[in-house]
């Protein structure tokens, strides 16, 4: 028997577009992350007193500036989504059973979203000198 063409099962258009968008996101976020991460490393580890300058006051000082708040939040979001999407492609490559694949992907994105929420909470609500009854718990520069 000669079969000229075996039709493939109908494609899920939405899912196909998503794969394209995921690929585009990886390229774009990768480029932005290079700037964000190396900028971050340079400021924290190299400029000024270098690594010795890092302490609570250094972070508090940095986050007093909205630029660094935005910088760090953006870096957090992009790095987590970029990394999780990379893990997703690995899961899609190496899992044989559909159930396990679904479970691992759901676990990945749950962790990713939880970390994004927690991290964003820190960068947006950060206050180095909160109102507290225990004054000794506050860093030196608040007094």
């Amino acid at each position, binding site marked *: 028997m000669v079969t000229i063409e075996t039709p493939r099962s109908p494609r899920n258009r939405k899912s196909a577009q998503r794969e394209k968008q995921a690929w585009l996101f990886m390229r774009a976020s990768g480029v932005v992350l290079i700037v964000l991460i190396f900028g971050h490393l340079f400021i924290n580890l190299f400029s000024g007193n270098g690594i010795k300058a890092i302490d609570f006051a250094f972070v508090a000082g940095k986050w007093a500036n909205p630029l660094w708040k935005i910088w760090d939040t953006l870096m957090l979001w992009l790095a987590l989504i970029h990394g999780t999407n990379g893990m997703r*492609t690995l899961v899609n*490559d190496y899992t044989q059973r559909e159930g396990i694949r679904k479970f691992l992907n759901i676990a990945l994105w749950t962790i990713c979203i939880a970390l994004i929420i927690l991290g964003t909470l820190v960068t947006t609500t950060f206050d180095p000198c909160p109102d507290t009854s225990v004054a000794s718990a506050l860093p030196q520069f608040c007094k």
Partner: protein
Amino acid sequence: MATSVAENNTELGVVPSFNVTLFVRRFNKEDGLEARWEDFDVTVHGTDRVLDALHKIKWELDGSLSFRRSCAHGVCGSDAMRINGRNRLACKTLIKDLDITQPIYVEPIKGLEVEKDLIVNMEPFYQAFRDVKPFLIASSKPEKERLQSPEDRARFDMGTKCILCAACTSSCPVFWTDGQYFGPAAIVNAHRFIFDSRDEASEVRLDILNDKEGVWRCRTTFNCTEACPRGIEVTRLIAEVKQAILRGKP
């Protein structure tokens, strides 16, 4: 001229010969055994290719050894196999170019089901090839020659070199783990028509390759480019198809 050739014949005609050990991956569905390595010692000439050594084994040592070959000159693409861990054509790999102080390992290409010894089931590979519609699709009747400028012809020239040996597709780690992926060879053959100015169904093929198992699965590991016995820059062609999908046109 003729006399000088005749005089030097003893020197010119001598082809050095040497002994090599070949470890060949054997498998037979019917004997119920696991796949295993079997070694053969053969004497080969400096002009011999791995295919000649396999012939020698089959014709003189063990007639049950099975492998594919048709033209035996690098055109038909039948004898792609994994030689010392690299996908090559047995008929284009000179034994003297390998490290002959060590045994030569010959095994079937990966990612496709082994049927016997070095023979794999190529059907999934051909299916992916058929799926990208590897033929000219044009609305006009073929009453006269379809003219094309040399520049337009050059645009897709590289893809025309493909001999469908599956060396690229079976070197792709994504294809090894996920048999649903179209694979490099199918994308190269889609590229050959997508960028052909005479063809009118580029959008259809781009749409097919925009699939979940399409070009986006390519991880640009360059295994395919390295494996191609025809020197096709496979990874580059895949990247061009990706760009064409993003543009929405070739």
